[in-house]
C-alpha cells in the first residue's frame, strides 16, 4: 500500500534528515513509526503525503507520487494531525467532516450518509452540529479522526494521536484505532499506545531505520531502545 524506495531528504543543504530510507507497508497493516525527537518521523509522514519531496520514490498503491497524481493519491490517504485545532478548521464538526468528501466529488447525499455512519460508529452523533471551538480536547481528537474516516481512505496516517489526552480519552482513541480496518501508520512517543495498536514497529534514528520488526519484539528490547534514546513502554518496564 505504502512504499518508500531509497528516499533521502534534507531541509538544509548537506544536513539530511532522511537518509536512503526504504520500507513497505502492506494493505491492512498497522505500523508504528517511533524514534527520538529529530529522528525524522514527521518528515517521513510529510514525504508520504507529498507535502515535501526528496530523492527516491514514494509509492502509494504501486503508483509513484508526483505532482500530476498528487490530488488523486492523497484521496487514498487520511492524515490525522497532532494538533486537532489545525485539522478542524471549519466552524462545526459536520462541516469539517463533509469538507474532504465533497472536495473529492462525493455527492452531498453520500457524504451525509458517510458522516452519519462514522459518527454512529464512533458514538459521536451528539457532536455533529457542535462548534469546533466549543468541544473539549478529547472530543476534538475523536472528531478529527471522524473527519478522516468520512473520506473513506485506504490508509490512515496519524501524528501523535494520543498526545495531550487524559487517560480516558487516550483509551477511547486507542480503541478506535485498533478497530480501524485501514492500513495505519502511527508516529508517537507513547510506546504503550503503539504496543496496543500496532503489529509492526519501525524505529528511526538520524533519518535511518534502526530496527524494523514485530512491535512486541522491538518494544521489549531495552538495549535497542536505550541505544536510540528511547525507553521501554511503561507497561513492559514494571
Amino acid at each position, binding site marked *: 500500500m505504502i512504499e518508500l524506495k531509497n528516499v533521502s531528504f534534507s531541509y538544509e543543504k548537506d544536513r539530511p534528515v532522511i537518509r536512503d530510507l526504504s520500507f513497505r507497508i502492506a494493505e491492512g497493516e498497522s505500523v508504528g513509526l517511533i524514534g527520538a525527537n529529530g529522528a525524522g518521523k514527521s518528515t517521513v509522514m510529510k514525504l508520504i*503525503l507529498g507535502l515535501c519531496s526528496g530523492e527516491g520514490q514514494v509509492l502509494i498503491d504501486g503508483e509513484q507520487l508526483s505532482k500530476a497524481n498528487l*490530488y488523486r493519491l*492523497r484521496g487514498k490517504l*487520511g492524515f490525522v494531525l497532532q*494538533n486537532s*485545532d489545525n485539522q478542524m478548521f471549519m*466552524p462545526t464538526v*459536520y462541516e469539517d467532516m463533509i469538507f474532504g468528501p465533497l*472536495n473529492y466529488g462525493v455527492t452531498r447525499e453520500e457524504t451525509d450518509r458517510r458522516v452519519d455512519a462514522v459518527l454512529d460508529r464512533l458514538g459521536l452523533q451528539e457532536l455533529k452540529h457542535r462548534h469546533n471551538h*466549543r468541544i473539549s480536547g478529547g472530543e476534538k481528537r475523536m472528531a478529527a479522526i471522524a473527519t478522516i474516516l468520512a473520506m473513506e481512505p485506504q490508509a490512515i496516517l496519524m501524528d501523535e494521536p494520543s498526545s495531550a489526552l487524559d487517560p480516558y480519552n487516550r483509551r477511547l482513541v486507542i480503541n478506535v484505532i485498533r478497530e480501524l480496518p485501514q492500513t495505519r501508520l502511527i508516529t508517537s512517543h507513547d510506546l504503550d499506545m503503539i504496543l496496543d495498536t500496532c503489529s509492526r514497529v519501525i524505529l528511526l534514528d538520524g533519518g535511518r531505520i534502526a530496527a524494523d520488526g514485530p512491535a512486541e519484539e522491538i518494544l521489549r528490547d531495552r538495549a535497542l531502545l536505550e541505544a536510540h534514546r528511547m525507553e521501554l513502554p511503561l507497561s513492559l518496564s514494571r
Partner: protein
Amino acid sequence: MNKMEKALYELTEMDDLAARSSPIHGLCPMAKLLSTIAYIAVVVSFHKYELSALVPMLLWPVLLFQLSGIPVRTCFYKLRIVLPLVMAVGLFNPFFDRAPMLALGGVAVSGGVVSMLTLMLKGVLCLMASFLLMATTPIDHLCAALRRLHVPGMLVTLLLLTYRYVGVMTEELAVMTEAYHLRAPGQKGIHVSAWGSFLGQLLLRSMDRAEELYNSMQLRGYHEHFHYADIKPCTPRDAVYTLCCIALFLLLRLVDAASLLGGLFVR
C-alpha cells in the same frame, strides 16, 4: 478569569445567542442577510442633516430585539469597544460647520452638531443591525448565504477562518501573557520593551498554524473551492419578511415620519 479568557468567553457567547430559538432565528439566513444589507444601505443614504428623519429607523432594530429575545444591553456591552470609535466619527464637524441650523429652546444648534449626531446615529444603527444579524445567524449559515449572493469565495473563506481562529489565537495570546506574568510578578500589563518580541512570537505561531492548516486543507482535496453548510431554502414566509422589511425601510426613507408625527403636535 483574565482579560483574554474573558474575551474568549464573550466570543463563544455569540454562538449561544445564534443557537437560540425565536421567530427571527428561524428565518432563512438569506432573508436576514438581505434585510440587513437593505437596512444599512438605507441608513447610510440619509443626508447628514436628516437627523430627525433618521430616528424612526430605530424601529427595526427595536422590533428585532423584541422578537429575537436578545437583550439590548448585550448588544451595547459587546459593542462597547467599537462604539466609541463610531461615536468619534464626525466629532470635528461642529468646528467646521458653525452655521446655525435650528434653535432648541432658544439655543442655536449648528449644522456641524446636527451632522455629527446624524453620523453617530448612523454608525450605531449599522452596528446594531450587524450585531443582530450575527446574534441570530450561525456564522456558517451566514457564510453560505454570502456565497449565494456571489460574494467572492476568498473573502467568505477569510471571514470563516478568521472567526474560527480568532479564538485559537486569543488562547495562544492568553498562554503567552500568563507565561510573561508568571515571570514578571507585580507588573501591570506587558512592558513596552517586550512588545516587539511578543508580537513577533505571535506572528511566528500564527504562520506555523496557517501552514499546518493549509496542509490539512490540501490533504483533504482543497483546490480553491470551499464547501459551505447547506442552508435551508427560503420559504414564502422568508420572502414576505424580506419584502416587508425593505418596504418599511423605503417608507421610512421616503416619508419623514418624525416630521409627520411632530406636525400633529406642533404647528
